[in-house]
């Protein structure tokens, strides 16, 4: 007996032959089979990503080859009608590395139990959880649990970086009602300092202080929704957050994230200048417009009241590479905006000329020092394999955010296999 796959393949060949003679009638086409195994979803999602490319680096000023291998695993299983277990882990091996980082880094992103009484809209989660808040693309000031999330930075794309960050250990309760809901998360202090060891669980990065978050979300109409947050952190004043989205037209969506609380200026932290925290506004405001040809264009303004202004960059970078490393350590693992003000243009397009070809690109501009970071990705899909071309370029004067990045330009080819 012939397998459905063989029959489908034969049908495809016949269809292709007919197509080549211009004879294809849409009503002759047959649906792909829906085998039972596709409906009974696998609890395991696994992909392996391998790539190599050329790096044009600034310090020293030469070119070298970069390589990376990543294994990304997610496992989600229902233990009973009311209990579910989620596990998520990623292993990255990269060369070269920066600032003495390990070349092999494992990130235990999530491991938690989830309890939801049958048919209920209340849930209780316990374990390491990646709790994500905010609507913005590049900078989410209301995404409070992003602190210490990134152990390995394998891309410049701020959206893709969220795929690899680790969560914080917490107890989280949620309750939903029609057109709204509330979430309370309690995350205790478990360790004091981060652990950069290759296979460290690294609770010191995500749970170095007692923290609590209460957020309430509401949907006032089909076109507007908002989320208000109160975030408490040991040793800091309360922080208030507001995140909202609105549909402004058939093709236009707006988003706004706003956080207000006392913060220490980044310059003072880098230079170890004693100074009291000041009330600080952090915000991201954006618009996404979709063209009829499927191109989605997002323009986002980002503001960090504690970030570095043009003069601050000069003061920091005049201190030498150690000050720059400290800047990186204070911003990169937390997806914090280093600049006082920045613009992000983010573009994505499905089926760019070819059905299976996708484009993603962004340009980030520091408005204070005029430095820029550009990034572009072309991704071609096969059923279980992606071929990816990535290009990245950082430009600006020497004493600027992106002008001081160790890599001037990066071009790499990646292959991704999905299991």
């Amino acid at each position, binding site marked *: 007996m012939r397998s459905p796959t063989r029959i489908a393949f034969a049908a*495809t060949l016949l269809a292709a032959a007919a197509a080549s003679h211009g004879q294809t009638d849409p009503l002759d086409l047959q649906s792909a089979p*829906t085998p039972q195994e596709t409906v009974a979803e696998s609890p395991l999602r696994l992909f392996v990503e391998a790539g190599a490319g050329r790096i044009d680096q600034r310090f020293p000023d030469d070119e070298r080859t970069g390589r990376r291998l990543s294994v990304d695993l997610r496992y989600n299983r229902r233990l009973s009608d009311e209990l579910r277990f989620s596990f998520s882990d990623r292993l990255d091996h990269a060369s070269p590395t920066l600032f003495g980082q390990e070349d092999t880094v494992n990130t235990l992103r999530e491991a938690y139990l989830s309890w939801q009484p049958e048919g209920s809209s209340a849930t209780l989660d316990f374990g390491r959880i990646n709790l994500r808040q905010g*609507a913005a693309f590049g900078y989410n000031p209301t995404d409070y649990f992003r602190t210490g999330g990134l152990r390995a930075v394998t891309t410049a794309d701020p959206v893709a970086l969220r795929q690899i960050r680790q969560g914080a250990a917490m107890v989280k309760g949620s309750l939903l009602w029609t057109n709204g809901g509330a979430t309370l998360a309690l995350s205790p202090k478990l360790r004091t300092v981060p652990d950069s060891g290759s296979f460290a669980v690294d609770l010191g990065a995500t749970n170095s202080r007692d923290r609590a978050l209460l957020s309430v979300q509401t949907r006032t109409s089909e076109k507007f929704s908002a989320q208000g947050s109160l975030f408490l952190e040991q040793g800091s004043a309360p922080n208030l957050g507001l995140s909202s989205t609105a549909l402004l037209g058939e093709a236009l969506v707006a988003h706004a994230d706003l956080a207000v609380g006392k913060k220490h200026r980044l310059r003072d932290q880098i230079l170890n200048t004693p100074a009291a925290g000041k009330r600080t506004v952090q915000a991201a405001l954006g618009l996404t417009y979709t063209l009829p040809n499927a191109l989605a264009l997002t323009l986002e303004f980002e503001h960090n009241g504690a970030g570095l202004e043009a003069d601050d960059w000069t003061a920091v970078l005049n201190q030498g590479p150690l000050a720059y490393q400290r800047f990186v350590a204070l911003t990169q693992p937390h997806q914090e905006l280093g600049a006082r003000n920045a613009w992000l243009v983010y573009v994505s397009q499905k089926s760019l000329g070819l059905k299976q070809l996708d484009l993603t690109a962004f340009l980030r501009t520091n408005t204070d020092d005029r430095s820029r970071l550009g990034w572009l990705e072309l991704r071609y899909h096969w059923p279980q394999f992606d071929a990816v071309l990535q290009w990245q370029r950082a430009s600006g004067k020497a004493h600027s955010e992106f002008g001081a990045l160790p890599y001037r330009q990066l071009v790499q080819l990646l292959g991704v296999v999905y299991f």
Partner: protein
Amino acid sequence: MPELLQPRRRFLFGMMIATHWVAPPATAAPDAQALLAASDAIRNPSQPFKATVTLTEFERGVQVNATTLVSQARTLESGGQFVSLLRFVQPARDAGKVMLKNGADLWFYDPSTKASVRISPQQRLIGQASNGDVVTVNFARDYTATLAAEEMVQDGERRNRRAHKLQLTAASEDATYGAIELWIDEANAAPLKARFFADSGRLLKTAYYRRFQNQLGAERPTETVIIDGLQPQSVTIVRLTDYTQRNTPAAWFQRDYLPRFSAE
């Protein structure tokens, strides 16, 4: 057709009107809106339901993509809005992604980034999820129908059928399309063929409904052939299987439930 005589008020109402029209008094004019409601009731179960959706995409007759989704849908008691949650099962790279449609409240959730992103109707129209609208959305709520003609039309099985041609114009902001031409079977109000137009009048897609089977108490089309309006060689076949009754709570059809639905 005894399977059509279900004890569900809305469905029965639609069918009573349709049956009435099949054998009308000589002078009676058919109620186009009631015919449309009857046709909706054939495409969509009136009770909350779950189904598996397989989307097979073809370019010039050659299969280029196959996507499997699990759909949960219901009509909200307040306002009568037809809402749906779509979760991607295959391909592997998209597994766990979720699309929510609650009128103009459209959200996309990606479990890898944990991000719920509001999307515009235009953005949704571009993706494959919009083909789900052709199959499972209720038209009577968002469109005003008028009877344009009575004519013979070829259905998805290539049989010539006597049909009412309804002209649908958008009557609410939730309407995805500017206008729709819908042919429904004179005998039983089953949908046979539809043409979907943008506000500009551009033909977006043509759909043929076929492979009628008994699902959740009625003969429903389990396959829809969708032909792209601009590129007729781009064809998508939407197949619905595994219909089951599933009373998904109304509170779950919102942004904050998407991570939970993604993990189901």
